[in-house]
């Protein structure tokens, strides 16, 4: 039987998605349901003096109106940060309370203060307009760079500082810088982004008064984790009385990891009014209240010798957390950022210092890449600048500092098991026709255009993550994954996974893996996820962990099935279990022609006694049935890597940047389904290029979101991109049995510095902040013209 792993198996999920048969949260309608509308703060920072709901209560169709007072009275807990970070001085991070409905203070535009529940959506909206909230408006803090000088947002949190964290050794770095021939320094801004999943957030909460069980259908990347948080911290219901279902989910990118205010409020309120409640975000609410991503201000320095060896690296960053610290809000700018900031290089001494600040803006949390795009942007912009200042070819300078032996003990935290960075660079250069660039540059010049080329070599730590490692770094949970493989008596297989697919094609790729492991046709394998009542438990999908962690749990559960199958076969065929081999779905007794198919074995497991003259085929100690569970805790992160090369052409008269060529050569380890991986790479690149050239979340000084719709927030479109030139080098991971690494975030990690390096190359080294909009680039072109004419 041919292996399915590695082939372009068509997606099982496409039939329902492409024919409009997906079942998303907003598609779920329950009998007698009500509709919720949230009353949100129009101010970035204010204290709530009074809320008057009298008029609203009289509005037609209103069932209930609840505020922060009721939720506090019922002792419902607030939203939490899932990762404890300690400051350099040893103090614990400082987190404010974040009640699901604000009671005393609001801290960003969109912070919910009340929920209006009515018989219809229109009635709920109308009544919500009649809720009168008397605010005392306070001066907002919105700037990342200046947040520490602003008014104190949260009582007791001095300088709006959550933590001041250090990773690395300042003294060693100082010594390295003292020895340097040259220090390259850079000031950069990693612009704030809004994730913009295609499906806005939604939830439907239901309460069964007889079983006292709450069921919450919600747009989540991790239903079990959500249940745990809502139960343990939200006090919504004990875990066995709370079922969380995340059905088809239309994109997450990290924005659907968090338990949100609406999840808690609707679950709590459904029990209170003893009716189902439905809430679906409008796109404007998504802009305002989904977690945002990035938002760093960084000063970084690289100490080098004159021939280009890197000696030391400093990274001083201010990271904006927004109004509150959320689930991965504190780890994203620390352990997901700092360790990767030294990039793919051997740098003997390094440190990263991060000051995480609160501002009156939407909470910032993990967004595709989470910390690693910010890290890669820092080091790769710096390395590119070093190549310009040292006059060493940008690819040669990188190669000079690549590690060549693996495992590679990276400067700050990670031990990278495998990779071949030089091979990746060489292949990328060939794919991009790096040598031919100068000729293309001259062609552009002849047309009056400026052409630039940019390179990025990256590695990232994903497949998060070993429980022992992350829990020692402050994570509140272990990041293992579970899988359960169940055979039906008639031989089909259901695989329950704790991973969650919201666009990642698990239904196909996981089935490919199980089909290979079990020798069962892929048509006979179903992948089930997204319901706490079905699978055992799961930590969900983020940090490119589904395959490298969840997929391995499936492999391990399948291996347990095979082991049991061997014992059963041995009993059935009167052989020694050690003599039974398993191949392509058949258990074969070696050196004989005796064999059983896995289907026959499954049947025998469920119907012991009907075969072999009514004698049970089950060995002593084995129970009936064929079902195995595995909880897999990885031994290490996984470390995808690669080199990307971009070429841009700039019209100096208008500042328009055209991305002419984009080459991505990635090492994702073993690839399960090349078609799915291409999709992941394309999507990641679109988001990464979006950050570099188009997307930007902008607040004004009063904390109003200026880019709150698609009229002003530039979501890239297909015509913004060239045909992507994609290739791979595949060095298998040595830390898991499939040799896989993870591909979901690479594009978003590598693309921003790649494109910006190209833009800045075209502009003769002038810094431009992301996104490189036409006006910024036009101004830089004018400066370039001035300095060129001076030089002439």
């Amino acid at each position, binding site marked *: 039987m041919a292996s399915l792993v590695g082939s372009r198996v068509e997606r099982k999920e496409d039939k329902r998605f492409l024919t409009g048969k997906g079942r998303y949260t907003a598609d779920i309608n329950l009998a007698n349901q009500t509709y919720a509308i949230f009353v949100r703060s129009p101010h970035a920072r204010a204290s709530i003096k009074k809320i008057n709901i009298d008029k609203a209560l009289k509005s037609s169709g209103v069932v209930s109106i609840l505020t922060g007072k009721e939720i506090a009275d019922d002792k419902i807990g607030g939203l939490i940060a899932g990762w404890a970070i300690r400051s350099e001085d040893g103090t614990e991070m400082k987190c404010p309370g974040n009640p699901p409905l604000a009671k005393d203070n609001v801290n960003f535009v969109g912070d919910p203060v009340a929920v209006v529940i009515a018989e219809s959506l229109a009635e709920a909206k109308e009544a919500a307009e009649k809720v009168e909230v008397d605010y005392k408006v306070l001066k907002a803090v919105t700037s990342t760079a200046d947040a520490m000088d602003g008014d104190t947002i949260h009582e007791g949190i001095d300088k709006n500082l959550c933590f001041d964290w250090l990773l690395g050794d300042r003294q060693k770095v100082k010594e390295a810088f003292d020895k340097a021939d040259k220090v390259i320094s850079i000031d950069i801004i990693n612009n704030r982004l809004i994730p913009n999943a295609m499906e806005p957030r939604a939830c439907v909460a239901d309460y069964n008064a007889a079983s006292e069980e709450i069921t919450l259908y919600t747009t989540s990347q991790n239903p079990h984790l959500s249940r745990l948080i809502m139960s343990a911290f939200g006090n919504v219901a004990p875990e066995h009385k709370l079922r969380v279902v995340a059905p088809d989910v239309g994109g997450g990118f990290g924005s659907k990891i968090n338990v949100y205010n609406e999840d808690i409020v609707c679950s709590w309120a459904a029990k209170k009014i003893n009716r189902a409640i439905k809430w679906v975000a409008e796109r404007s609410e998504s802009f305002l209240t989904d977690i945002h991503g990035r938002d760093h201000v960084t000063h970084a320095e690289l100490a080098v010798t004159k021939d280009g060896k890197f000696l030391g690296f400093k990274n001083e960053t201010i990271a904006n957390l927004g109004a509150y610290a959320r689930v991965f809000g504190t780890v994203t700018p620390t352990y997901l950022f700092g360790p990767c900031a030294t990039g793919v290089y051997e740098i003997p001494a390094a440190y990263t210092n991060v000051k995480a600040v609160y501002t009156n803006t939407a909470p910032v949390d993990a967004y595709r890449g989470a910390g690693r795009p910010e890290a890669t942007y820092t080091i790769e912009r710096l390395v590119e600048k070093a190549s310009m200042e040292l006059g060493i070819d940008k690819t040669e300078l990188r190669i000079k500092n690549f590690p060549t032996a693996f495992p590679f003990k990276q400067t700050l935290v990670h031990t990278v098991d495998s990779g071949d960075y030089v091979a990746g660079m060489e292949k990328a250069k060939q794919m991009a026709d790096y040598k031919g660039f100068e000729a293309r540059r001259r062609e552009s010049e002849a047309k009056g255009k400026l052409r630039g080329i940019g390179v990025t070599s990256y590695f990232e730590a994903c497949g998060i993550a070993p429980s022992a490692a992350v829990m020692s770094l402050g994570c509140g949970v272990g990041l293992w994954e579970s899988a359960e493989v169940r055979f039906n008596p008639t031989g089909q297989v259901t695989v329950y996974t704790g991973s969650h697919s919201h666009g990642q094609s698990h239904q196909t790729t996981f089935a490919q893996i199980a089909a290979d492991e079990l020798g069962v046709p892929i048509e006979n394998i179903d992948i089930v996820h997204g319901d706490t009542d079905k699978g055992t438990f799961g930590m969900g999908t983020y940090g490119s962990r589904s395959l490298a962690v969840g997929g391995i749990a499936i492999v391990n559960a399948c291996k347990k099935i095979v082991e049991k199958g061997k014992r059963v076969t041995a009993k059935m065929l009167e052989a020694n279990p050690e003599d039974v081999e398993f191949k392509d779905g058949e258990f074969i007794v070696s050196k004989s022609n005796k064999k059983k198919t896995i289907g026959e074995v499954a049947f025998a497991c469920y119907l012991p006694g009907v075969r072999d003259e009514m004698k049970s085929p089950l060995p002593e100690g084995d129970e009936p049935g064929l079902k195995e569970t595995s909880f897999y805790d990885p031994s290490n992160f996984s470390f995808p890597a690669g080199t990307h090369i971009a070429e841009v052409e700039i019209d100096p008269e*208008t*500042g*328009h940047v055209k991305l002419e060529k984009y080459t991505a050569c990635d090492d994702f380890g073993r690839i399960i389904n090349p078609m799915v991986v291409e999709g992941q790479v394309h999507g990641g690149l679109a988001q990464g290029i979006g950050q570099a050239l188009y997307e930007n979340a*902008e607040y004004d000084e009063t904390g109003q979101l200026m880019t709150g719709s698609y009229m*002003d*927030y530039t979501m890239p479109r297909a015509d913004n991109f060239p045909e992507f030139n994609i290739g791979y080098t595949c060095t298998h991971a040595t830390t898991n049995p499939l040799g896989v690494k993870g591909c979901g975030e690479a594009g978003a990690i590598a693309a921003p510095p790649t494109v910006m390096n190209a833009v800045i190359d075209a502009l003769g080294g002038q810094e431009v902040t992301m996104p490189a909009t*036409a*006006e910024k680039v036009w101004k830089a072109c004018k400066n370039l013209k001035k300095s060129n004419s001076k030089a002439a």
Partner: protein
Amino acid sequence: MKDFNYHSAKDSKEASKLASSSSAFLAGGMTTIPSMKLGLATYKDLIDIKNIKKLSGIKVSGKSVTIGAATKHVEVSNSKDVKKAIPSLSSLAEGIGDPQVRNRGTIGGSIANNDPSADYPSACIALNATIHTNERKIEAAKFFKGMFETALKKGELIEAIEFQIPEKSSYQKHPNPASRYAIVGVYVAKHKGDVNVAVTGAKSCVYNDKEMSKALSGNFSSSSIDGMDLDSSEMNSDMHASADFRANLVVTQAKKAVDAC
């Protein structure tokens, strides 16, 4: 969205009769409906004019192209007659919004709304259009009064727009990357005798740039306007483009348009 009455008028007369101070004509609804959904506009009555047959369709004569007010952008962009007579008008229609907008939005709606960054008003100015209403004929130069303001009176309905066929013409726009409305759009049309340089997006209302028109009427070459330093004091400035950048774009787009003629 607040409740409203929906009417489907069978002819201009009925549409006009139904109009009041709290009504709006509804064609494609590409601006009206979102405004109502966002609570920015409320109407007691919406008078749908899409079903008035007389208002749709394209007629080309030797001198002019006449387009019914309820004609959709996609019909203009796909029309072989328009492509032949005024190719730049067809490509302008092809560049409006996105396919969804082009499949519903209408030329009359665009002009009546007079959004300062809409594309069609520049075509009207550049192509010396005449706006035919149910009451009168209005020259384009007198039609666009200011931001979202036109010469239309309450209850007056645009029936058709008649464009003069130029010798040469081109429309070039620098779109807002998010909305794809024009940050600056310049429509250059060379008629017998004079040249119009209609600019949209740059100021509060579409206008004919007299200086560039004059320079190009003298010498129809992009070199005659190259490096022209335009006064940006009346130009729009927002987070997408400063007034200075817009002033620069007016010249560069005009040059592009001349070169494309």
